[in-house]
């Protein structure tokens, strides 16, 4: 029952989060923007469409949509949202590596159609995620050390709460996670999903040949990933919200996600996309931050 609530919440809130991000961005750049529910409408439209499948594509292309969405769903099932109990409690290293499975199929599907755009996107996506991996691991190591547990839900819920000034390392880790959120979810300083030029894209170039149902699954997976990362990063700052009863915890979680969405939107509106060669220094900074957080823990 709890699991059902957890998954339903994730599925229902994830597109809304993307909607909040877009709305904030539009608001800050003095546009009206699409309605908050636009991501739902997009998904509904795509699920009712047929697909155009490239003649060069193999079964990997057909499998990519389900695997990408399935991977994102299992990831969401391991991420605490409104309480420490999750449907699938997962070791943090396992959690990080599980992100590789959908990515493996997605990057391969990008190469499968033989399109130069797909290859371009896949290559960049793989490189970005490879360089993000150490930072993510160090950040979660830091949390696991602070919370003295192995599973994601376990250590997030037992983080020392309230005393942000006594534990500056939690801020550093939250910062690292936010940088990673931006890098791993194709957000603006790293990647711009809304340009008209495919050559400059990372994620969108990779899924250019997907249509209809497949595209809907991939978009849903992207919404879910954004929600998963937001839930992680925000619960580091407000670990107390994970110890509430579901009655209070669910609104608290929604508030946290909404805050995160506004923050992402503000960053997107306020920054310009970096050159591709700047992404590596960006991720290195994330790694350095995470390792300082760990050093602080072992010192203090």
């Amino acid at each position, binding site marked *: 029952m709890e699991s059902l609530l957890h998954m339903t919440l994730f599925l229902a809130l994830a597109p809304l989060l993307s909607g909040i991000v877009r709305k904030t961005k539009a608001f800050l750049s003095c546009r009206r923007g699409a309605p908050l529910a636009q991501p739902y409408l997009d998904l509904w439209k795509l699920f009712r469409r047929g697909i155009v499948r*490239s003649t060069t594509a193999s079964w*990997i292309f057909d499998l990519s949509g389900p695997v990408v969405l399935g991977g994102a769903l299992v990831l969401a099932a391991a991420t605490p949202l409104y309480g420490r109990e999750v449907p699938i409690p*997962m070791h943090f290293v*396992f959690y990080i590596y599980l992100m590789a*499975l959908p990515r493996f199929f997605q990057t391969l599907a990008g*190469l499968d159609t033989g399109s130069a755009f797909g*290859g371009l996107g896949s*290559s960049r996506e793989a490189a970005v995620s490879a360089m993000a991996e*150490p930072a993510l691991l160090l950040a979660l190591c830091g949390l696991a050390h602070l919370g003295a547990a192995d599973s994601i839900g*376990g250590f997030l819920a037992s983080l020392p709460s309230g005393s942000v000034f006594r534990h500056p390392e939690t801020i550093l880790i939250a910062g690292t996670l936010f940088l990673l959120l931006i890098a791993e979810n194709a957000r603006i300083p790293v990647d711009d999903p809304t340009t008209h030029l495919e050559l400059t894209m990372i994620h969108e170039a990779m899924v250019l040949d997907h249509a209809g149902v497949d595209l809907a699954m991939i978009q849903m997976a992207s919404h879910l990933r954004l929600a998963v990362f937001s839930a992680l990063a925000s619960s580091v700052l407000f670990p107390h919200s994970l110890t509430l009863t579901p009655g209070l915890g669910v609104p608290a979680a929604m508030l946290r996600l909404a805050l995160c969405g506004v923050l992402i939107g503000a960053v997107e509106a306020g920054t310009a996309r970096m050159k591709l060669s700047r992404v590596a220094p960006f991720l290195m900074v994330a790694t350095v931050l995470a390792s300082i957080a760990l050093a602080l823990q072992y010192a203090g």
Partner: protein
Amino acid sequence: MPSALSYVLAFAFVFPGVLALLVRDPRRSRIVGFGGGAAASFLGLSMTLAGAAQGKTVRFPLPAPVPWTVSELYMDGLSAFFLALIFLLGFLASVYAVGYMREFDEGRRGQSAPLFFNLLLLSMALVVSAGDMLSFLLGWEGMSLSSYFLVVFEHERAEARRAGLIYLVATHIGTGGILVAFLSLVRQTGSFSFNGFAAVPFADPALLAATFGFALLGFGTKAGMFPFHIWLPYAHPEAPSPVSALMSGVMIKMGVYGIVRFLFYLLPGAPASFGGVVIVLGLLSGVFGVLYAIAQHDVKRLLAFHSVENVGIILLGVGAASVCLAQGQAGAARILLAGGLFHTLNHALFKGLLFMGGGSVFQGTHTRNIERMGGLMRGMPLTGLTFLIGSMAISAVPPLNGFASEFEIYRGLWEAAGKGGVSPGLLITAMAGLALIGGLAFVCFVKVVGTVFLGTARSPQAAAARDPATSMAFPMGALALLCVAFGVAPALALDPIRSLLPIGPVSLPVSPPPETAGTFTVAAALCAVVGGLCLLRFFLLRRNGKQAAGTWACGFAYSTPRMQYTATSFADPVIHVFRGLLRPHTVREERAKGRFLTEIQFDTHVLDLFENGIYLPLYRLFLRLAFLARRLHPGYIHLYLGYILGTVVILLVLFR
């Protein structure tokens, strides 16, 4: 295994090899030689498993190869593990070779291969079951020589001869190191047998360190550990594919065996710094191995560099286990050593699989350059599927076996550093390094699978390639199944491995930790969700319709398959980031006719920094010294007699 059986086993390996030389018909020769080897390996595997099930060390004396010494074979837990590894992969590689070596039927060029192949298997078995220094070295030399003959198997090609020479020199430098380490042990303990070595602890720490250093040099060279790895990317690609599979999957693990044997058995009370050195070298092997692999276009060379990477991961686990043991964390040490050995097994499985897949692709396309392949998933669906599984395993994608063992290593590292507080700086750096290695391996294998099997064929040969015959398909399928099985249910392999270990309380941590979900649960959840979504997609598509069209090219058409993304371009973002370490070398030539550019040739490759920066200058220095030394013997007999006189005088004066 009783003494008589081991003679039977030796005979079972050698006899078919000799017979294969004598049979005239090349096809029968293959079947007799490699089939015999497969049968002998199967016999060996069942004997090992039966022996290991009894769970005690078996030892028996043999007639000594050298007079006045006692030689003995023994099989303890560690030996049993490695014996099982050798015979398992030996069996599958032999079956694969029956089909693969057909290539050499013409002119009966392949007649000698079974003999060396079987001798290689037999000598490796001798290495891991040797109970004393002399039989160990006998096995070690036999292994080096038989594999040398397999590397130069296609000796009509200059590259093969060059690779063979590099291999021969490297392996003998390694043997030299091992010999020095053993002699130091003999001098210290006065015994030739391993039991004798282990019985007497070292008194002098400097001598202990020197002994370990020489052992690390020797075994590290064989294992392909950084910075002694340079022979590996030359030798492995030149050998025929089943041999590459065996060399990469099993033979380099003999180096790992040696390091484990020294650290945990022969040098009791090794200090933590030894393990620290092994960790650092393992990390460097991992990072450099995978970085160089990303830059390769030759599929077998690429796989060879990945062997360097994976040996790095294994050594990371083994070294960390030693550090933990020295600091009194037996529990973490146990997880780490089991993880390292599990990765040894897993690497043998997926690397064997990948080399076999690479061999099938090579037979289909007659090129090793991945830029000339593409779209092979159509013509070779089985090879494609198994290669994909192998690639996911080596990139540590769950729920496959590569992840299962890396997870154990992570878990041990975290158990020690995060909870136990054992040298957190080093061990957490090791974790971050492992994560980087995993991410980069991911890039590399998406590149390989994408360019080799997906898209459209880049050459007519690639378009015509077909799946290989059953004898080659069977081992690939079996290995792929094992990769999945050990990934989904790691306990299948981990429990036996743990029961063989010499350290720690036996009741220690199960995997995964009880409060988190295991691979099996996650795999089941994934299967259910992905299966459901596939069904959903199927029904939606039946309702909404699906149409086929050419790949979208902005309203144009892709006129040639060469417009696809290439492997070089795919690797470029990573190479660009690490260009300071890799120093990519780019040649760009432009040809113009009149005012118009007609042709641009672009070539980029990465040279091994250590090969060119350290080994080549060393080699030149050595050569110069050799030329100097040559002046000492100009060929006059009188001068030589004078040398003898001088030597006698000096000896008499200086040493009474």
